């Protein structure tokens, strides 16, 4: 049993948010009543507010990406639970620009419902609101799953690209179109060799037999639909990246953006080793790896696993991706 370091309330999120707000007071502001985070400054050229949100436990997503050049607001729900519609509604009202507000939503029933209700209320209040749905998870790409593919690692790339685009003054429709296109060109696969610990019990969410691997996990500590034996990381990365390329079918000159993402407890030694394997594999496939990130960007509490995301970009998308950013978790 491994208890989280917490204040005895069993609730990690509110304490974390107030500590986060103090730690990054130069960049963000926290509304404790409605539980959302907003950027202190945004580019004067921006006409649409960018907002994202979802269950907590995926840090630095989303609050870590609030600042200049990326999100104007984040609505963190409880652990692994969508934020409620009032929170989204109020945060949207707070950051809407002259051309409205854009919701970047990961494809989960709960998020769709709560963002949906908030969008209705915003329409009612005369605030233009658009939505970009992120559904990159290849493991949930199946006829059998009526809810569609899950939104996972690609979210952070979509947020960055849309942040760069919004700073050029792009309007709501343009952002929705760009975001939808870009999100469609991302796929992710994730594996785990050990589950996260459940905060209320301190126990692992599930136990894996030694040497086994969950292949195709999400970011909520749920198991995958299958278990396979743990191979050398080179073979594993080839299998995963091969499946992503098969799904995305990039052209020979398309620039790719890769994200090697830790789900919580994987060491950075491992992540860089994985990135090395990915680089070699893409080289043999003669795919152009134009940009990459290695680190913990979208997590699942302290799950021991990682995800690989590939995005097929183009020169415009790369420009937006390269644009300046200054947030708690991402700056250049």
């Amino acid at each position, binding site marked *: 049993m491994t208890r989280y370091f917490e204040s005895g309330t069993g609730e990690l999120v509110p304490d974390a948010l107030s500590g986060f707000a103090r730690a990054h007071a130069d960049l963000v502001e926290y509304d404790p009543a409605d539980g959302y985070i907003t950027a202190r400054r945004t580019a004067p050229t921006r006409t649409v507010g960018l907002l994202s949100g979802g*269950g907590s436990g995926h840090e630095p997503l989303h609050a870590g990406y609030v600042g200049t050049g990326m999100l104007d607001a984040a609505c963190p729900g409880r652990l*692994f*639970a969508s934020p*409620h*519609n009032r929170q989204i509604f109020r945060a949207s009202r707070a950051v809407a620009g002259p051309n409205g507000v854009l919701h970047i939503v990961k494809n989960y*029933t709960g998020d769709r419902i*709560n963002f949906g209700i908030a969008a209705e209320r915003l329409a009612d209040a005369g605030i233009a609101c658009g939505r970009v749905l992120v559904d990159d998870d290849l493991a949930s790409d199946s006829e059998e799953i*009526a809810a569609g593919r899950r939104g996972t690692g690609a979210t952070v790339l979509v947020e960055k690209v849309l942040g760069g685009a919004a700073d050029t003054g792009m309007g709501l429709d343009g952002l929705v179109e760009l975001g939808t296109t870009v999100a469609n060109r991302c796929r992710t696969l994730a594996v785990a060799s050990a589950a996260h610990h459940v905060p*209320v019990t301190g126990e692992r969410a599930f136990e894996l037999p030694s040497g086994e691997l969950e292949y195709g996990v999400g970011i909520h500590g*749920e198991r995958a639909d299958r278990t396979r034996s743990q191979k050398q990381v080179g073979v594993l990365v080839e299998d995963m990246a091969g499946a992503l390329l098969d799904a995305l079918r990039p052209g020979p000159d398309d620039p790719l953006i890769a994200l090697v993402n830790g789900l919580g407890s994987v060491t950075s030694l491992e992540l860089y080793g994985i990135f090395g394997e990915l680089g070699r594999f893409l080289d043999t496939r003669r795919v152009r790896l134009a940009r990459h990130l290695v680190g913990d960007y979208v997590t699942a509490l302290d799950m021991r696993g990682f995800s690989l995301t590939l995005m097929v970009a183009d020169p415009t998308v790369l420009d937006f991706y390269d644009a300046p950013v200054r947030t708690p978790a991402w700056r250049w």
Partner: protein
Amino acid sequence: MTTAVFDSTRTRDWTRRFAASVYATEAELTELDQRVGDGDFGTNLAAGVRAAVLRLDRTGAPAGSAETLGAVAAAFLDEIGGTSGPLFGLLFQALSRAAADSDVGLTTGALAEGTAEGLAAIRRVGGAVPGDKTLVDALAPAAAALRAAQGTPAAAALAAAADGAWRGVRDTACLTARRGRASYLGERVTGIPDPGAVGVALFFASATETVHTLAPHLSTG
């Protein structure tokens, strides 16, 4: 002797018993959602009933059935996220509206109408159909039982609804999921009942009793 109508006192008691049932089974609900989902259903539902009871306490004693259920609905719709939070909110909102329409509180007719409308709203918003292994699979048989119970007292009708809901819960154990997080797990969830459906059954069962443990309701026969 069964109760003909759920008046304001009975509706408040029902709500508090629902809260008690949820607290008593929170760990079991967590465990279920851990096996088929992401493990937060118990916490989400408990947060909902806690917020609801807080609102009731603020609203005070004179509240009628419609106001009571309205406060519960507002708590779930306005304060609770997750998938199940707003969906439960829609059910309570429909029941509140039906109670308001009936003048005397929750008659068997109002219960049947409110539940049917709540079910319709949940299906509109969430897109699930019976057999998708969601809370719809408990709510649909509950609604059917209430419709069939027209003319019997409210308490008896609600007991029948609870029976239907528990049956629905047990049936979900045989299903693979097409909606909700359980759908990502394929065949792996066969054998495990849907936690959201259990939540619905807890609600109807709490009309007449506090549920202390799930086990007796989950085993067939």
